[in-house]
């Protein structure tokens, strides 16, 4: 095996890229980003997954993008371009939402943070950064509001797991205990003043995400301080492999899989975060039409009954072998120790307990529809 190699120049890198390589991470191209998929020397996907469920794991999620809305009509712009009702947010509160096309399909799913009455921050997906920024620019021009793509300003580190709070508390002067899920605050972290600290994540576990300046030296210093502070809790660095299996167990959507420009909000089962009572937003007329008409496919959770792992793109077939649906994400579930998947199927096959066939390498392998999320973290 070669010595510590440099990333291909065509791939984008986070400020922590050299740190990942030093730590022996296995790197992959993720949506044009050179990102760690796992750290074999300290964990590996399975160990990293379990660390987050039972202790704490540290992720570099700086590839995620950020769009800042400021100005007197920032709320109007946010309301127009996203499906949840941002008028309900108070400063320091965030929620899950999405930007929709007029057809009610997904531009992207986002987290909207209300920083102040005239100040909102969207956290967006890595692979959709440019598309999202373009979509925002194209659609909020009529508002007295500035929308800036500030994606490159931050290194975003996720500290996830039941021991996440205890870890981060060692590094900040902010009392973390009153911060509720999907709320955030600003405080000093590792000596960095005014750092955004959000109780958010993409693992189905309790945890925090911190937003620090993106310069490589600061990013590396904080990364190592977080790992060092986490030593007593068994903290290990975690890659995108574990991030994917964690979010799948928690049934959190992944853009390009469960949601895309071809899948609508009702099909994806995300209508809970879509507020049709809002006077106006992009996608609303189509959503009302779809709500009245119903959907032709719906997202279900599958658990394999027979031996096999359903993978992204595998067909769901009826007993005669005709395709009736498709797997969007599938994997071994490392904490649940089952083989699970998410799939689109016709609504009449979506009932809990229905037995379906996943076509795996030409063979029909039985799976049953189960309630989701597959994993729900225990209440404190």
């Amino acid at each position: 095996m070669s010595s510590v190699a440099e990333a291909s120049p065509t791939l984008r890198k986070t400020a922590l890229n050299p740190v990942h390589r030093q730590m022996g991470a296995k790197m992959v191209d993720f949506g044009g980003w050179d990102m760690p998929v796992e750290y074999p020397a300290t964990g590996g996907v399975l160990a990293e997954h379990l660390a987050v469920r039972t202790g704490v794991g540290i992720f570099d999620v700086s590839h995620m993008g950020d769009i800042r809305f400021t100005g007197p009509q920032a709320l109007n712009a946010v309301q127009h371009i996203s499906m949840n009702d941002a008028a309900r947010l108070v400063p320091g509160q965030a929620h899950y939402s999405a930007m929709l096309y007029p057809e009610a399909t997904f531009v992207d799913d986002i987290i909207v943070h209300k920083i102040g009455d005239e100040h909102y921050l969207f956290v967006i997906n890595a692979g959709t950064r440019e598309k999202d920024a373009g979509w925002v620019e194209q659609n909020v021009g009529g508002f007295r509001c500035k929308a800036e793509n500030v994606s490159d300003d931050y290194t975003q580190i996720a500290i996830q797991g039941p021991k996440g709070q205890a870890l981060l508390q060692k590094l900040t002067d902010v009392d973390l205990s009153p911060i509720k899920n999907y709320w955030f605050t600003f405080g000093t972290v590792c000596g960095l003043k005014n750092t955004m600290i959000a109780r958010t994540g993409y693992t189905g576990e309790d945890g925090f995400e911190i937003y620090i300046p993106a310069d490589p030296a600061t990013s590396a210093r904080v990364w190592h301080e977080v790992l060092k502070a986490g030593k007593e809790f068994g903290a290990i660095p975690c890659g995108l492999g574990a991030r994917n299996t964690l979010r799948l167990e928690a049934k959190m959507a992944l853009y390009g899989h469960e949601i895309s420009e071809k899948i609508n909000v009702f099909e994806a089962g995300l209508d809970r975060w879509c507020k049709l009572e809002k006077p106006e937003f992009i996608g609303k007329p189509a959503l009302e039409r779809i709500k009245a008409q119903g959907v032709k496919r719906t997202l279900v959770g599958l658990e394999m009954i027979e031996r096999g792992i359903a993978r992204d793109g595998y067909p769901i077939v009826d007993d005669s072998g005709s395709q009736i649906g498709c797997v969007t994400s599938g994997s071994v579930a490392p904490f649940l120790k089952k083989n699970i998947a998410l799939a689109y199927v016709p609504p009449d096959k979506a009932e809990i307990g229905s037995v379906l066939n996943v076509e795996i390498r030409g063979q029909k392998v039985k799976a049953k529809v189960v309630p989701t999320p597959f994993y729900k973290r225990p209440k404190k």
Partner: protein
Amino acid sequence: MRRQDAAATAGETPYYRQGRRYERKMNYPSSLKYTKDDEWLKVEGDTGVVGITDYAQNALGDIVFVELPKVGAEITAGKPFGTVESVKAVSELFAPANGTVTAINDELANAPEKVNQDPYGAWMIKIKLKDKGEAGKLMSSADYEKYAAERG
């Protein structure tokens, strides 16, 4: 062994030493023969024992599923005979020689991680070799080591 998707790439050499994998030099016993698809073959009389190499298990990462043929199945040199899956990737297993399957390692159905832990102990299938001479067409451990190193 050949990956079916392009989900992952091979890793780099880490400098960390406390780890689970990677902390040791890759191991390729000289008593075995090797394919370019990263299977090994051990010849015992007219029986061939088949598994995947240290390089393969390391490149795959945590192995979670192994699918093997039935006893009695005919396998053809260079053609797929089974599947090995890590958390992220599905890879086919390729037969190192022609023959008939005489035994499969049932233990791997419930303990696929044994392939990571001990790739040469965790054999996958035994075959009755059609022609023992075929093993001569495969790589020696020295050649395979070079071949593995070239791919990083």
